[in-house]
């Protein structure tokens, strides 16, 4: 079974980035509101040192990807683009497989370019985790 191409993957990633940015902003606003309630004015967004912000976002992204793939087999971005992650058996990945895929995805994002060369259009994180990012049946007709 061949996977989805680079354009769909990038578009889905773009949507996911938007979702995560919104979640980030919401968390910041809520934390700022809590601090404002406890300590009084002025209202300010919480300021984190650069490394803490990076690490917390890294963890957030990995959790987001793992939870999405384990629970529904797709992230919100992939839902919009009509894609889903399946294993060899055609089912959504388990928690460990999803975690591995998320870790490789975050640590080595350039691996998505392997879809251009790969015979069955799989990225590096697909190969490592033994998964395929395929089209939903409704969309597959258009890709053929």
């Amino acid at each position, binding site marked *: 079974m061949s996977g*989805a*191409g680079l*354009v769909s993957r990038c578009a889905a990633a773009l949507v996911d980035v938007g979702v995560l940015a919104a979640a980030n902003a919401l968390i910041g606003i809520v934390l700022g509101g809590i601090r404002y309630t406890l300590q009084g004015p002025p209202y300010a967004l919480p300021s984190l040192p650069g490394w803490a912000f990076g690490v917390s976002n890294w963890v957030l992204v990995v959790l987001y990807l793992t939870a999405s793939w384990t*629970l529904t087999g797709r992230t919100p971005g992939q839902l919009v683009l009509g894609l889903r992650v399946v294993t060899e058996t055609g089912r959504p990945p388990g928690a460990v497989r999803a975690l591995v895929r998320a870790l490789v995805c975050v640590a080595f994002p350039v691996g998505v370019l392997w879809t251009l060369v790969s015979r069955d259009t799989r990225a590096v994180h697909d190969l490592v985790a033994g998964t395929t990012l395929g089209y939903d049946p*409704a*969309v597959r007709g258009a890709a053929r």
Partner: protein
Amino acid sequence: MGADGAQRRPAAVRVAGRAGRLLAGGAGLTVRGLTGLVAPPGQAGGPIVVVGTRLGEAALGLTALAGRRVLDVAAGVAMPVEAAASVMMRSGGSVARRTGVARRVDRLARIGRDEQRRNERMAADLLRSAWRRSVAQALADADVEAALAGVDLDAIVARVDVDAVVERVGVPELVERVLDDVDLGRIVRESSAGMAAETVDAVRWRSAGADRALNGFIDRVVLRRSPRDGSRSPP
């Protein structure tokens, strides 16, 4: 925050607001009727009555202002809660589907639905038989022919002043109220939801087509190999 704001509120909040309004209106009408009975018509009433009325109106104004603020805050809180709840419901549904809980729930729901249908049928039968019996009783008791013979329809019709009736009903007001009740927001929401679904479909097909084109280009021009199965065009 006027009628525009009221449209954005959730249905439950709107219903609560309307119920409160009805309650207050009914209470006001009762009070006014009672004071009208006590004081003879044409007299403004003593200063105590005036001051009391003014204070009561001020309290009502305060309540209305506070209620409006509370409703605004509630609506602001309800929106993210609603969104989060819908996300939870969706993911919960998919988890239930995967674990087989959904099948069991479906079975229970079917049993419950059958039971409810039976209850409804029984209630309807009961109602129908009671209705038939009471109507038959009433018809047996009444002597319709005699009553009709004593009525002079022409005289009644001649006495009706149609213009006054129309004026009393207040057609323009009625039309305005009906137009107010037509939920324009819902109509816009529904049609925009349809448009959103079409847009998503278009995005999916476009991106899948772009995938195919890109893969085909790489295979044919860059790597010079036979096209992969995902990008093969139909024979």
